[in-house]
């Protein structure tokens, strides 16, 4: 086996030095009733070329967007990833290292994460960002737990237009804690209805996603003001960070914590993972923040260097009193996002966000011209909801035969919205694709 370097001679010599007669002898402390009774029954080991065939054949049994024109977004977006980012990210010094516990031989990872924290803070308009979390959904759950630590509140209010799968993750995280989750309904313009907030007590946090699950841009400023009146922290979530190339950022609109998914920033969708949980906050809350942080310091000769810092918040020091149980970040994904943001730059980010917006507005306009019904009136970014006719579901299946995926039916999460589909465009959806789609869905 090519990953096992030991020759029979090596094994014999090492066994002698270890005072053992055989390899089995090394396991004598494992009692008989804790052992396997038979050998492992796994397939015969594959050669490298057999393995390539296996994965190739499995991957062909997935409708990936390389053959399909998809209008699927909903928290996982198709964006071009420059080859330069993919190449840099495959450098084995980044890939095969671990958490930078020994800073003197991990300065590459450490400086890169410090830069990621900086670019993230700038993107979100926040004072401090952590080194990343698992994904957008768990980042939101961690943000809510953080708000519950900061305030003395016992309940959190979540917009119903936060991604439904994120709300499920939040429910899972909060279930054993006894804290209450209150849902904020939405109005006819496709944004969160804040009116119930005025009478809500014991609030630790209000969380709103913008652009929200329907793609609508929320009035975060008003929500921030109302939240502050209730003595709670204002959390903004996002699934499409590219929006902040164009939109006002969460910090400018009064967010105490901004969190969400960074997959759009140079990370392939890959069936949903790995992803990138982004989390940033006001600096006064930094000591209650979950996750790793990299800080700048100096070496004994006064030279700039970077280290993991504020570890006293973390599980390995604080044990059960830690701010979270998280041990690592999603380092390589954070690195991908930093490389992507660096490649785009301020100018590119603005331009790309505008192109994305233009494409989705073009699709929206063409659908309206063709007589389709856009469900909500407010401004959107990249995604919007269309109400098709009740017979559309069979058309949806026919379109799949033609290798078009006509967005995502959302009735499963919003039973009051039958025949409603969430459609998404990015810079990868060209005018030709859009024109063909509009033609196909127009009766």
């Amino acid at each position, binding site marked *: 086996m090519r990953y096992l370097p*030991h020759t029979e001679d090596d094994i014999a010599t090492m066994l002698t030095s270890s005072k053992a007669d055989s*390899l089995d002898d*090394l396991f004598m402390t494992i009692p008989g009733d804790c052992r*396997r009774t038979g050998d492992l029954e796994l397939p015969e080991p594959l050669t490298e070329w057999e393995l390539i065939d296996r994965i190739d054949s499995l991957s062909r049994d997935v409708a*990936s967007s390389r053959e399909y024109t998809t209008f699927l977004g909903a928290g996982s977006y198709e964006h071009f990833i420059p080859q330069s980012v993919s190449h840099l990210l495959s450098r084995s010094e980044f890939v095969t290292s671990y958490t930078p516990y020994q800073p003197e031989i991990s300065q590459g990872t450490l400086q890169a994460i410090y830069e990621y924290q900086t670019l993230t803070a700038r993107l979100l308009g926040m004072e401090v960002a952590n080194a990343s979390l698992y994904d957008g959904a768990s980042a939101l759950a961690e943000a809510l737990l953080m708000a519950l630590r900061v305030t003395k509140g016992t309940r959190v209010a979540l917009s119903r237009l936060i991604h439904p799968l994120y709300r499920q993750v939040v429910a899972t995280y909060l279930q054993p804690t006894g804290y209450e989750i209150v849902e904020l309904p939405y109005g006819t313009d496709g944004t969160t209805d804040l009116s119930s907030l005025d009478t809500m007590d014991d609030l630790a946090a209000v969380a709103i996603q913008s652009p929200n699950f329907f793609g609508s841009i929320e009035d975060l400023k008003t929500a921030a003001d109302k939240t502050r009146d209730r003595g709670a922290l204002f959390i903004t979530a996002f699934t499409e960070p590219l929006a902040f190339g164009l939109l006002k950022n969460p910090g400018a609109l009064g967010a105490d914590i901004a969190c969400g998914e960074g997959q759009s920033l140079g990370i392939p969708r890959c069936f949903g993972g790995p992803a990138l949980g982004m989390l940033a906050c006001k600096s006064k809350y930094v000591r209650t923040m979950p996750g790793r942080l990299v800080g700048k310091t100096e070496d004994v000769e006064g030279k700039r260097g970077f280290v993991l810092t504020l570890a006293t918040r973390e599980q390995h020091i604080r044990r059960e009193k830690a701010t979270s149980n998280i041990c690592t970040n999603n380092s390589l994904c954070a690195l991908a996002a930093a490389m992507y943001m660096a490649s785009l730059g301020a100018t590119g980010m603005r331009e790309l966000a505008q192109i994305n917006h233009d494409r989705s507005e073009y699709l929206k306009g063409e659908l309206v011209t063709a007589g389709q019904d856009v469900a909500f009136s407010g401004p959107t970014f990249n995604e919007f909801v269309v109400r098709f006719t009740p017979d559309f579901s069979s058309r949806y299946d026919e379109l799949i035969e033609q290798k078009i995926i006509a967005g995502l039916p959302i009735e499963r999460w919003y039973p009051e919205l039958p025949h409603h589909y969430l459609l998404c465009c990015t810079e990868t959806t060209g005018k030709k694709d859009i024109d063909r789609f509009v033609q196909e869905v127009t009766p």
Partner: protein
Amino acid sequence: MTESPGTTGLIMNEPLLWERGKRGRHGMSLPRRDVPSAPLRDDLVGDGPDFPDLSEVDVIRHYTRLAQWNFGVDSGMYPLGSCTMKYNPKINETLSGTPGFAAAHPLLPDHLSQGALGLIHELEGFLAHITGLDAVTLQPAAGAHGELTGMLIMHAYHRSKGSPRSRIIVPDTAHGTNPASAALCGYSPVPVKSNDQGILSVDAIAEIMDDDTAGIMVTNPNTLGLFEEHIRDIARVVHAKGGLVYCDGANMNAVMGIADMGAMGVDIMHLNLHKTFSTPHGGGGPGSGPVCVAKHLEPFLPLPRITEQDGHYALLWDAPQSIGKVQAFHGNFAVMIRAYCYILSMGRYLRKASQLAVLNAAYIKEELKDTFHLPYDRPCMHECVFTDKFQEQYKITTLHMAKRLMDYGFHPPTIYFPLVVHGAIMIEPTETESKEDIDAFIAALKAVAQEARDNPDLLRRAPHNCKVKKLDETRAARHPCLQG
């Protein structure tokens, strides 16, 4: 001694990203504008992020230089105890980026994602077989996330029996994350000491296990690298009081094909695909922390479950006892592809991998036990734990020796963990290190121990050959500077 791998070379300085670049440069190809521009309402538009503008060459040089400041498994031996820094096969890297998978959307209808669902389902089966448990979820994103998932399952199980219970037993030889994971579920950890052999005694558990204790979180093999020999009886004690046994499987690399977690009485266990199953650590993630459970706990696993019927895979959302979701989508699929490829490449050799991992650790233990203090001289599994007790007389600590080891071209072992040993040096070589590399590592550690006697100041000022000298961590924590 043969020449050690450590030397010096030309290392390039590199500024921070925003100290480079000029406004108007760009490093990325953008699509043509083929539709009319649609301006957003003015009051919604912001200034855009304050990013530097860089060319593609700027970006490439920047990160290439940063990469050269890093030490990885591909650079040399990385014997970080409890982290299983084994070789990460390159074919698995390539295959994890297979275009059809890389471009797959997680919310595709089931019949359009059969290849991905099939891979996950088959990998679940492999992991169940390897651990000896019955059902598996691959949704958790990392080891600590798997622990949390395991604790949520334990909590949901007890709730279904009428009371969630309030305490959980956590031995001093368990992983450091365990208490924090338990606390997230409202459990107060009850510490229990290992005995003079470095393992748990049945009596110690019997004394504290009661009707309000949800169970035990045990790491086996434990963080001293020792097999918990009484685990079967401990499980009986815990089960008799209605509790569950959670096993932290971070050290599974020692016992693949040898131990049977089901037979031991384990009810819930998490694995780390990035340790045992050779997927890369990526500088601290992404990993993957699957959770394996005994049959009676399957209804509590996260949603959705993947079911198979006549070769067709479907997502099952209807499971009323499930804890719900722990990640938005299906987990870290690209990591699963790598682990799946690893298992298919290894097959029955997984057992051999564990045998050689243990052989390497046992060999190091024997070769170094005269040089460093060995607190528990018992047969070790995949890692061995020394201390700095012999070097105390020269006022040399574990930290000094770890830093000096870098100059010799090795990543230091895990230090000051487990806490149960003062000044711990925890060495986990893994099976992918050859005898020559291990001999060079042993020689380097012996040379460092010699220097501790002859020239202790050299160690106190180490490392000498790295990009930066010893860094001021106190200053970083006192005056946090977390972004530029």
